[in-house]
């Protein structure tokens, strides 16, 4: 027994020694640990990336790293959602809209030293789309349907790539600018196979250096970059899933830049001279799907009444604390070229709402409302749902909320609301004005046809406009068609249009030259740090 006691004592001594050692080290180390190194930008991410293979991921969180390591044939021009040349110097589109020919930039090399040529580009799309491709098993490639319009890719010479489409598909170019269109090194895929996602190689301004699981991803300056090389030596992406901890790291100096600042903390950072807060509206829309097939919402007047009844300004200012703008229609203003500026949000007018409900004979109707606990782009869905419930109660609609976890929620909403609910929360973030209305507002996009029109909206005029806009290769013509579509949809009110999310970020005082993009991508090539 004495031996055991002695052991306990000595263990205690070791414990004390360890604590003393740590405390002794804490003083000089603590301040060093809190300071990020010069010329290295430490970025706070919301989660560990899934993979650094751009064709296998779907999360914006992963895109933020990828956009600094890889490039596509085209990209969004700074501050817009319009495409401009990137790895392709120029392109031409055949008159029938079926053939896209790209001229590649000469002399570009992947980080592994292999050359970017037409064969490499072809490899990228074949790997994703052709199930018999030898490297198709390095997937799955969840967003490969972005390119399902492709019939074939040809490489007539090293500097020319020709895409042949099955049918005219105008969003093709902006899909190429999306992360799913980023070009990976075939040599690296051949070398690493399924492990390519942890050994990435692209052509971007930063090249991959290190991935320590659950701690950091490090990318360093690509000194052979074909464009202007970045001034930062390295970027370190740290996954910090808990928002409070992320804020604490930012405050203690462990991060130079963090994205998705909780609304509660934005004001705190804005008031502090040591930090700069950034805001940028993006291609996001938060709305309620209304069940236009059955129940009170089948009447257009009730759907309009819901739009009038909800105090969107209060939602945006109070619940979301200014991190979003009031939405006017189905298309976010971030798509500046396709957005109908003349569209006004439904004003908050409870009297008008009551009038419309009375005219439709649905006073006191009982409604079921699907709310989610949280999910991609859903902002603060539970308090938003509660505020909406209160607004609708004020005009005499009795709303019963059913709350579900995100995956369960999608499993209930995506197959359609029929027989289950009258309304459901939803949010989308897209890269082309075509995507959301095409997938969620057309008659041919009803759930039984494999689309996301869970509220069964149907208007032949809208269907026709969307089909025409997709076939046209003339941007001005497409813009005209989308603007007309927005006017009709706003009036038909298949959705209650609520908010467009403004992405935010905060940086330390030493960071300069940073800006957020409407694409929500994080481009850090031009950032400097003192």
């Amino acid at each position, binding site marked *: *027994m004495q031996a055991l*006691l002695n052991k*306990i004592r000595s*263990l*205690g001594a070791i*414990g004390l020694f*360890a*604590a003393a050692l*740590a405390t002794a*080290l*804490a*003083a000089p*180390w*603590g*301040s060093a*640990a*809190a300071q*990020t*190194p010069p010329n*290295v930008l*430490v970025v706070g991410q919301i*989660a*560990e990336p*899934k*993979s650094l293979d751009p064709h296998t991921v*779907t999360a914006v969180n992963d895109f933020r790293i990828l956009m600094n390591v890889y490039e596509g044939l085209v990209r969004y021009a700074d501050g817009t959602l319009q495409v401009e040349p990137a790895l392709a110097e120029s392109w031409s589109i055949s008159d029938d809209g079926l053939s896209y020919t790209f001229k590649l930039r000469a002399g570009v090399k992947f980080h592994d030293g292999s050359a970017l040529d037409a064969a490499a580009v072809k490899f990228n799309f074949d790997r994703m789309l052709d199930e018999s491709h030898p490297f198709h098993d390095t*997937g*799955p490639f*969840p*967003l490969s*349907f972005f390119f399902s319009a492709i019939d074939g890719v040809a490489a007539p010479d090293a500097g020319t790539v020709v895409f042949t489409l099955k049918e005219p598909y105008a969003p093709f170019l902006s899909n190429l600018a999306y992360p799913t269109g980023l070009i990976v090194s075939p040599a690296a895929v051949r070398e690493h196979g*399924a*492990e390519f*996602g942890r050994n990435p190689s692209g052509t971007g301004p930063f090249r991959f250096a290190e991935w320590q*699981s*659950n*701690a*950091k991803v490090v990318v360093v300056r690509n000194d052979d970059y074909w464009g202007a090389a970045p001034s930062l030596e390295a970027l*370190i992406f*740290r*996954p*910090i*899933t*808990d928002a*409070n*901890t992320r804020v*604490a*790291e930012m*405050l*203690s100096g*462990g991060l130079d830049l963090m994205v998705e600042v909780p609304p509660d903390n934005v004001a705190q950072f804005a008031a502090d001279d040591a930090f700069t807060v950034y805001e940028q509206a993006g291609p996001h829309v938060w709305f309620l799907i209304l069940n236009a097939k059955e129940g009170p919402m089948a009447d257009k007047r009730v759907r309009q009444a819901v739009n009038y009844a909800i105090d969107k300004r209060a939602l945006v200012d109070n619940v979301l604390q200014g991190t979003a703008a009031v939405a006017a229609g189905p298309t976010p203003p971030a798509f500046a070229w396709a957005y109908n500026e003349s569209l006004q949000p439904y004003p908050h007018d409870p009297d008008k709402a009551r009038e419309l409900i009375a005219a439709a004979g649905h006073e006191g109707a009982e409604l079921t409302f699907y709310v989610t606990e949280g*999910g*991609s782009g859903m902002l603060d869905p539970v308090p938003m749902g509660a505020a909406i419930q209160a607004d609708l109660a004020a005009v005499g609609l009795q709303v019963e909320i059913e709350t579900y976890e995100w*995956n*369960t929620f999608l*499993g*209930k909403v*995506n197959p359609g609301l029929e027989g289950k609910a009258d309304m459901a929360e939803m949010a989308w973030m897209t890269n082309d004005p075509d995507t959301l209305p095409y997938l969620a507002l057309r008659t041919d996009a009803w759930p039984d046809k*494999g689309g*996301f029109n869970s509220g069964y909206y149907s208007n032949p005029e809208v269907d026709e406009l969307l089909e025409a806009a997709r076939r046209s290769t003339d941007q001005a013509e497409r813009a005209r068609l989308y603007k007309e579509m927005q006017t009709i949809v706003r009036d038909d009110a298949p959705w209650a249009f609520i908010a467009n999310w403004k992405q935010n970020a905060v940086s330390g005082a030493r960071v300069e030259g940073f800006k957020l993009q409407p694409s929500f991508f994080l481009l850090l090539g031009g950032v400097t740090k003192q």
Partner: protein
Amino acid sequence: MGYYILRRLLSAIPVVFGLTIIVFLIMAMIPGDPALAILGAYATPENIARINRELGLDKSLVEQYAIWLGNLLQGDFGRSYSLNRPVIDEVLERFSATLILAGSALLICSLLGLLAGIVSAVRQFGWADRLITFTVLIGISTPSFWLGLLLILLFAVTWQLLPASGMYAIYGGGDLPDLLLHLILPACTLSVVATGVIARLTRSAMLEVLRQDYIRTARAKGLDERRVIYRHAFRAALVSVIPVIGIQAGFVLGGAVYIETVFQWPGIGGMLVKAIATRDLLLVQGGVLVVATSYVLFNLLADVAQSLLDPRLKS
């Protein structure tokens, strides 16, 4: 003894595998599937079918479990689709981080808890006892994730003495002092509740023992009070405290889930939470297998320690 340990280990095997079957069924029953989690808003029936085919999830449940078990027996835990890496790599990396955190917390709570319990019992109703009992009450009632945030605010943000999160410094570091520095806040936070429980239990066990006749005899013999307390009373009290420490080891492992999230400690708790949210079946199975096995081992260890201390239990 050796035979006893072997028998306990063998009897744990069906328990652990039964658990994996239950987890497998629960994962199959909760709504939403991995394809939905991967595709999110883009989950059309067509896309879901494509992803399920590529992940092998279009097979029947029995078939899926049989495949998993077959691979496992060959040492293959499968590949996580939410992380795109072998399950075993992730699980081992994460579990060793959790062991470091939970092990340190267990060390802290055992030492402090026993010490506080002894002092409290020996000085029953004295000021030290009152102080300890009061502190223990506060410690047990404090939600540990909240305490963690508070400690971060104090030590990392306000005083900038300790790092706010992570296991190693993000730049440089990576050695033992760096690890210890990052360990202080999460390990202390994690040990608070268990310290309280152990202290309370030690106190009552000690009080009970101190009232025994043989203690009075020992004192009457004129033995040194220190010797009476540590040699006679503490040893007897320890027998009933040890199994509780074993159980606390389980709680500490469980509590690590919150603490790992707050401190961004790359442990297995955070991994399991994320794996369940993304319906990453293979990762959940691998994680549960390892955690359940360690649970069994901890309890076995406590039982063995107990029977070593109390010869009556040996037979």
